[in-house]
Structures are given as C-alpha cells and as structure tokens.
C-alpha cells in the first residue's frame, strides 16, 4: 500500500477539488467505511457499544458541530453542554408528543430546534468578540440547564426530574430503550454521523465554508470584501448548534436512555467538546473524529490500566485522568496547535516523499 500521487494527474477542476485527491487515500477511506458499516456490527457487544463506539460517534458529532463554530468560524463557544441539552429535551418532547414519529426524523428535528436556539444565542457575536464572546456563551450554558431543571413541562412533570427515552423501532428493530441490540444503535449512530460528516465537509469546502474561515482569519477584511458578518456568523451558529443538538439527541436517545440536565449537560461537557476540537485539530473534519476518539478512549484505557491492572481506587484513577487530560491539552497546544489532524497531514507529507525526502 503505497501513498503516491505521482501519475495521479487531475484533468478537471472537479477532480482537483475532491475530498481525497490521492487515489490510495480514497481506497483507504472507503475500506474503512465499509468495515465500519459491514464488519463491526457482527462483532459488536454491549461493552464496546456503550463504552467505546456509541460515545465515540456521539462525541464526534458534537465535536464536528463545535469545530464548525470554533475551528472554521473562529467564534469560541463554551455553551456546548447547554445546546446538547436542547437537543436531548427536544427529542424527548417530540418522542412523547408524537409517538409515531420516525426516530431518525426525531433526531434531525431536534437538531433543527437546537439550531434556532443557537442562532438566538449567537446574536451577541455580532457585537462582541473573543474572550468576551466565550464568556457570553457561558450565559447560554447556565441559562439552558436552569430552564430544563426549572420548568417541569420539559420533563413532562416526572417526579424524578429525569427524562427517559421510550422504546422506538426502526425497520422493526428497537433502537432506543433497554431492549435495543448493540448493532442496531451503533448502525443508527454511524449512519447519522456519516451523513452529517459528509454534509459538514461539503459546507466547509464551498462558499459558506470560505466565508466562515474569512471571518475567522480577519473579520474586518472579510466584511470589506463582501462577507456579510451577520449571515456568516449566524449561519455558523445555526449549523454548529444543529450538529450539537443532534449529538445531544443521540446522547439521550440511543446512548444513555435517561438523563438529568445538571450532570449530563453541565459545563464540563462544554469543555470536553472544546478539548476534543483542540486536540483533534481546529478547522478539520477529520480532526473532530480524532479528537473525539482520543478523549473517549483515553479514560477507558486509563481506567483499564490503573483500576484493572494496578488495582488502584477509582477516585485516584479519575484524578489522574483529569491531570493527564489537562497536561495533554497543554502539550498539544505547545507542540502542535493544529492538533492530531495536523500530525496526520505532516505524516502524509513525509509519506509522499518517502523514501526520497530531498
């Protein structure tokens, strides 16, 4: 398997601007996708589903959304947890109000609801920038979690204040609720994430993506050459919240099945998503996946190592985990501010020239 672009000539602009311009990369990508869709479902078990794959997919979705806002459009948001909560509660209200509604439609509509909320909270970005905006998005975080705690309508007046996902079928197979088989929930999550990753790629490579990046790199110049800040910023907030809302809806429906806002959608989740984006790579679709994979796998590995192998108490392990995550953030920012995706790009650059680097 050689990584070569020699002889791989482009004869049209269409071929020149495709996502994977090099043939071997294309083959690798599709092989990976086929394996994910056609092989993994046969081997998946409960542990892999609930501890690794579903968390990975759900967080990838959230990281994708946040990356569109932070990495592409340059608007730092600390409200991810709150927007995930909007997605989750929208899904709950839709599922209970319209029991017949297809679960995929529920998930997408929840994203739509979150997009509207996100646009509202994105409006301040027209006046304020940088840190001030980051702090302003915390207002969204605290306010939204408070709303879902305070108004019983959102949790259908249940005594515990929790929301619980009722069982819903897709092609006759339960995909939410306790009876759903691991392969089914996995395939639903994978399909949703695959489709929206593709859409994300499309949006970021076209006119709108360029306008987002223009705002990110130099907002004043962008406005002067014809990028309307209102449209660019609000559309980034809308698309980003749409993705995060879908992540929240999946978090609730097919991952946990029952959530309570303070814990599940607290500010720590906002930071978590932000870390994924930083570690994975700001402004990179692939990076969102790498970052999510890294931060989902790291605690699993650490836990296996420290609790499973060394026999330490779980609280020591979790303290270590926080320390390591923090240290890694700093490490990545120092060594490679563009994250894992950039490391991958550099490796590819090297591979292209290998074995004749000069």
């Amino acid at each position: 398997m050689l990584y070569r672009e020699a002889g791989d000539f482009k004869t049209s602009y269409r071929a020149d601007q495709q996502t994977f311009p090099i043939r071997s990369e294309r083959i690798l990508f599709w092989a990976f996708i086929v394996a994910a869709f056609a092989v993994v479902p046969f081997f998946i078990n409960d542990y892999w589903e609930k501890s690794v794959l579903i968390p990975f997919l759900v967080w990838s979705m959230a990281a994708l959304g946040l990356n569109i806002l932070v990495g592409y459009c340059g608007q730092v948001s600390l409200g991810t947890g709150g927007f995930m909560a909007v997605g989750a509660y929208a899904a709950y209200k839709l599922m209970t109000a319209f029991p017949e509604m297809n679960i995929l439609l529920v998930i997408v509509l929840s994203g739509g609801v979150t997009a509207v909320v996100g646009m509202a909270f994105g409006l301040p970005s027209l006046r304020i920038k940088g840190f001030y905006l980051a702090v302003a998005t915390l207002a969204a975080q605290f306010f939204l979690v408070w709303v879902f705690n305070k108004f019983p309508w959102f949790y259908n007046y249940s005594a515990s204040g929790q929301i619980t996902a009722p069982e819903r079928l897709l092609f006759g197979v339960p995909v939410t609720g306790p009876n759903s088989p691991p392969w089914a929930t996995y395939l639903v999550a994978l399909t949703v994430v695959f489709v929206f990753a593709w859409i994300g790629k499309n949006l970021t490579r076209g006119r709108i993506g360029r306008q987002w990046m223009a705002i990110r790199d130099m907002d004043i110049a962008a406005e002067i050459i014809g990028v309307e800040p209102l449209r660019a910023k609000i559309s980034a907030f809308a698309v980003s919240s749409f993705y995060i809302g879908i992540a929240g809806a999946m978090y609730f429906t097919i991952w946990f099945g029952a959530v309570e806002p303070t814990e599940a959608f607290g500010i720590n989740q906002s930071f978590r998503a932000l870390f994924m984006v930083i570690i994975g790579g700001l402004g990179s679709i692939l990076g969102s996946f790498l970052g999510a994979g890294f931060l989902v796998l790291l605690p699993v590995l650490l836990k296996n190592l420290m609790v499973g192998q060394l026999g330490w108490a779980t609280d020591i392990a979790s303290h270590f985990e926080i320390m390591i995550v923090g240290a890694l953030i700093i490490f990545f920012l120092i060594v490679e501010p563009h994250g894992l995706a950039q490391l991958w790009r550099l490796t590819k650059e090297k591979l292209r020239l290998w074995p004749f680097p000069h």
Partner: protein
Amino acid sequence: MSLVETLPASQRDILLKVDNISLSFGGVKAITNISFDIRVGEIRAIIGPNGAGKTSMLNVINGFYHPQEGTITFEGVPRPRMRPHHAATHGVARTFQNIALFRGMSTLDNIMTGRGTLMKRNLLWQALWTGPAEREEIEHREAVEKIIDFLEIQHIRKTPVGRLPYGLQKRVELGRALAAEPRLLLLDEPMAGMNREEKEDMSRFILDVNSQFGTTIALIEHDMGVVMDLSDRVVVLDYGKKIGDGTPDEVRANQDVIDAYLGVPHE
C-alpha cells in the same frame, strides 16, 4: 478602443462623487470637508504625507467609516450609512495597506472568497454539494483560474498565504479584489515595501487591470514616480484637507503641494 477610453479623464462620466466629507474620531479630525470625483475608467491617485487621511478616505468610500458630514454618490446613487459588504456587492473592491489576507487559507481559497459576492447557491445546496453547488463552484473556479493566470501565481495556488513572501501576498490580495469583478477598485499602497522589480510588476498589473477589464482604480501610493506615471488624475491631501487636484503635471506645479511635501511650517 471604445469611445470612453478615448476621452480625456476629466470629461468621462462620474463613477463616484465625494461631497464635502468630514470625519472625526472623538474630536480628532481625520478628514475635513473634502470633495472630489472619480470618473469611469480612470486611475485616480490619492497622495499626501503620512497622516493626511488617505486611508480614512478609502474607508469612508467603502463604508467602513461613516462620515459625520457629506455624501458619497456611487453610480449616481447616494449611499448614506452603507455597510462595507454592501459596497462590495455593489462593485467596490479593495486591498489593504497592511496585508489583510486570510492567513489560514490557500491562495486559491482567498481568491475564491473574493468571488463570494457573485455566488448564489444557498446553504442547503451547499450541504448537498453534488449538483448545482458543485457546478457553480467549478464555474467560478474557472474565472478565478483566469485571474491566477493573469497575476502569474499559478505555482502558489494551493500554498497557505501565510507562508508566501510579502510581494506575492500583495499580488494575491489584488487577485482577491479582482475576483469580485469590481467596477471600482481601491488600492491602499499596493507597492509599499516592494523592491524596484516588484514595483514594476505591480504597476504593470495595475495598468493591465485598467486597460483589459476597464476597471476604475483609486490608489494610494507614496512613490511619486509611480503615481505620476500611472495615474490619470491625482488628488492631494494634507492634514485631512484637500490641497490639490488635477493631472499629474498640474499637481506637480501646485505650490501648496510642493509646500506640503517639502515641509513648510503650518500657520
């Protein structure tokens, strides 16, 4: 040659008219009561010593600053309190004194961004990509490639602009402005910090843009030789006031201009 181009600059139609513009920042007057016009197809230079209000003038023209007094009339329509992106969609493009490229993007993407005002497909088509959005993208890519050829920057098409040397960055910035197919192009010191060879290249591009595309150009420049050679008419500012206006020869003979440049003390 069209009829317009054969007429001397002072007799062509007025493209942009600046009327009694005054601009101040909290008591500091940047521009005081300035009027001049820019006619279709001409190269109009704005010169003056440092701090004369030249860049502020460009900022007023494309709506980045809003003057306290006076009006801007573009193509016969007064444009009060216009936002910069409106100026861009109505055919005013510009480059910047300190390079303001999008550093995280490639040369191609920078120029394509300049093309954004001409692209119409909305978010949903973009999300789908295949079909109209892709066709539109390719159509505009072809136009952008023409600009890339014109500016002779084919080899840096996919290079992130942050890595380019200064002279090339200036050229990419010109390309980004041209991509919008502007009717009025504002150039803020297009040759600052360049060596002789680069200046000659840039002058050639500016003249070619003017003659090949018929684009009207307003430029700020410090190199008097370049200004006098390139421009059809020159307006001279000093301390936010207009002190001279006319052909290069007229301006050169103007006593106020000579004083301003040789530094006669102000009363």
